[in-house]
């Protein structure tokens, strides 16, 4: 069994840095096939953008801590922020799939799809908020 060293990043809470951090995390994912790698990249970006836009509301000087560990069976991701976050029950209550009526173009969702993407891509995902720290912990196996 071989396990890589964890990737630890602390990045400014901006969209550009969310993009760069996603690319760093996904660089650990050479054991995914092309499709799974794309799914995982999307899920990571969704959460980091969620933190930038909603938890911090683009607050200047805010930071995001990221730890990713590529293990023998799975990749583990932990993301921490100290913004306003959300109540854990709200995270838990979010559906794991994007729901809409495909026949009604004008009611198609334009936002609010991120949590469903994260929940559908990750094998396990947990969100908690304690003492001012919001933490997402997610695990995705290399092979499903």
């Amino acid at each position, binding site marked *: 069994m071989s396990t890589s060293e964890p990737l630890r990043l602390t990045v400014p809470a901006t969209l*550009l840095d969310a993009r760069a951090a996603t690319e760093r995390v996904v660089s650990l994912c050479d054991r995914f096939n092309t499709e799974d790698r794309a*799914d995982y990249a999307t899920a990571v970006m969704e959460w980091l*953008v969620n933190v930038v836009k909603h938890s911090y509301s683009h607050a200047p000087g805010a930071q995001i801590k990221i730890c990713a560990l590529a293990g023998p069976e799975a990749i583990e991701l932990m993301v921490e922020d100290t913004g306003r976050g959300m109540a854990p029950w709200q995270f838990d209550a979010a559906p794991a799939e994007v729901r809409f009526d495909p026949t009604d*173009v004008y009611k*198609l969702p*334009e936002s609010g799809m*991120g949590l469903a993407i994260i929940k559908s891509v990750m094998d396990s995902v947990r969100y908690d908020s304690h003492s001012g720290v919001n933490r997402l912990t997610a695990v995705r196996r290399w092979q499903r």
Partner: protein
Amino acid sequence: MLMEDVLEGDCLIVSLNEKRLDAVIAANFREALVARIDQGQRNIVLDMSHVSFMDSSGLGAVVYVLKHIGHDGRLRICGVTPGVMAVLKLTRMDRVLKTFETREAAIAA
């Protein structure tokens, strides 16, 4: 944001020459497409062959454009890469957005 327009008959082909359609450029992308529609272009093919990654913000912008063009307009997408198809499938928007392998197929549809 790098975009290139080519007019073929009444069809405007818009190539998004960026690697990523994500939260960083989604708003600019949306406004650029809306401007083309508001200028009278109702038949658009969006060529995404350069885009290897799209997140839900980028997808939301495409959906906004689809709504803005309305039932009397046409929006088709060509050159969908695996990274773009990933988010279309994850959100099941592949059932709604009309995608084609090539630019020619999209124009002819």
